[in-house]
């Protein structure tokens, strides 16, 4: 039992450390143009704490725990859903480019 618990902890540690490296690698080069959407997108990703909020809401035994957990569910949902929607709105604007070239071509 004790050894099994230990190996689980080690596995989590490995996941943690490897994720650090992946996180560093993945964004090592980003143009300043994309800093804002990238920050906003990363912000939306940590909204997945919603999963944790749902789990603790399910486990809650007392009214205090349930109340706090439901508050966490609300906050996490705002973070996650709002975050992805707002990032998409920002990026939508970058997409208009090909159309633009036609426009400016016409006016010239």
């Amino acid at each position, binding site marked *: 039992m004790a050894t099994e618990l230990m190996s689980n902890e080690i596995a989590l540690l490995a996941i943690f450390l490897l994720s650090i490296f992946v996180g560093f690698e*993945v964004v090592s080069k980003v143009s*300043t143009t994309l800093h804002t959407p990238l920050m906003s*997108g990363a912000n939306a990703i940590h909204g997945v704490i919603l999963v944790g909020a749902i789990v603790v809401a399910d486990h809650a035994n007392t009214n205090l725990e349930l109340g706090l957990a439901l508050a966490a569910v609300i906050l996490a949902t705002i973070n996650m859903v709002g975050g992805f929607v707002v990032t998409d709105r920002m990026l939508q604007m970058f997409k208009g480019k090909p159309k633009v070239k036609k426009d400016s071509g016409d006016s010239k």
Partner: protein
Amino acid sequence: MSRNLYDLIGLAAGICFILALKGLSSPKSARRGNLIGAIGATVATIIVFFYANGGKALNHLPLILTAIGFGVIVGVPAARKVQMTQMPQLVALFNGVGGGAAALVAIVEYLKLGDGATTAEVVATVFTVIVGCVSFSGSVITFLKLQELMTTRPVIFPLGRQVIALTLIGVLASGGWVITSGGSTPLLVNGLLSLLFGILFVLPVGGADVPIVISLLNAFTGLTVAASGYVLQTTLLIVAGTLVGASGTILTRLMAEAMGRSLFGTLFGAFTAKAQASSGAVDTRPVKSGSPDDVAILLNYAQRVVIVPGFGLAVAQAQHTVRELADLLASKGVEVAYGIHPVAGRMPGHMNVLLAEANVPYEQLVEMEEINPTFPQTDVVLVVGANDVVNPAAKTTPGCPIYGMPILDVGQAGNVIFLKRSMRPGFAGIENELLYDAKTTLLFGDAKDSLTKVVSALKAL
């Protein structure tokens, strides 16, 4: 649903997040990247309903669904309706609520575990509560600053450094108290002190540095999520939180570099910098203000015009008008380019977002390093609602809040036109010597009104 299946689907969601961050790093794939991230998050949320209670319907299911519905009702319209100018503070707010959620999750799990919690779990809980609370209250302060509900200047109070140091000691000590004695009172004290520390930590940061702080707090929230993932033994939360923590840290450093500042200087600069004594004497000096016609004439006879947009453009929603002006000038044979400072506006890349909205051709947006050598050959620079990013004080005045930040060298051009609402200094609150220069013309008023008048004056010429 078995633990293995749950973890496998969680792993798939984690991979979605990696692909999302990767996608967001390049303009072509950014939107798809965001979509992949959203899919990963949705899948992760749905499967937890089938797993958390051993396959049975969750306890308190209606309440949980109501809470989610409420969050959607609040979050989606806010994200849809917010103006481009207010985007930074919305991101700050979303980040803050995420940090708050992570702290609450850890607190509930801690209360439930009671005395059964292992030391490692308690340590992770304390970490989550501290960092989550700091992220929450810090983000609220950045929101208030950006929304201009409070002063955008660094707030420096007497004995500030000592108060902050004492609060930090209190936070750590109460954290130690939780770990050694357990119970809910120490945790409550710890949480309250952490909230206080978050406020004190952000207050002295100057307005121009706020984006860097948002990014840093974003990384903090990521780490909190990872720590609560440990408490809940959920791999997905560890992966997602750590990814955001790591990438957020890199991003924060990149942003600080773009502003020519060290991260340390940003966070602690405000403590060492003396309050700027820039107000007073200089204000009385004469400035040359012009009419829209003067500006139109200057522009009409120029060969090369560089437009430098700033936050004022965003506030006035003048991006479409500025494009109209640029097109008009181009049709008269004037060479037009936009000089984009990486941190113009309230967030890095803010101007690119705005001008892209107005369908400004991407090739006309020239980054700082490329445009700076061309200013001596530029006849007119039109500064639309920008101030700090063209302020020579960044080069000439050691100790001022923006000292060391690379700027657009507009002073080297033949003429400089400032479209400004008033003589009020920029966001960072520093006087701009360039306004008093002989080759500078000022056109006061709302950027959009001014531009509209200039456009009609140009047409009449």
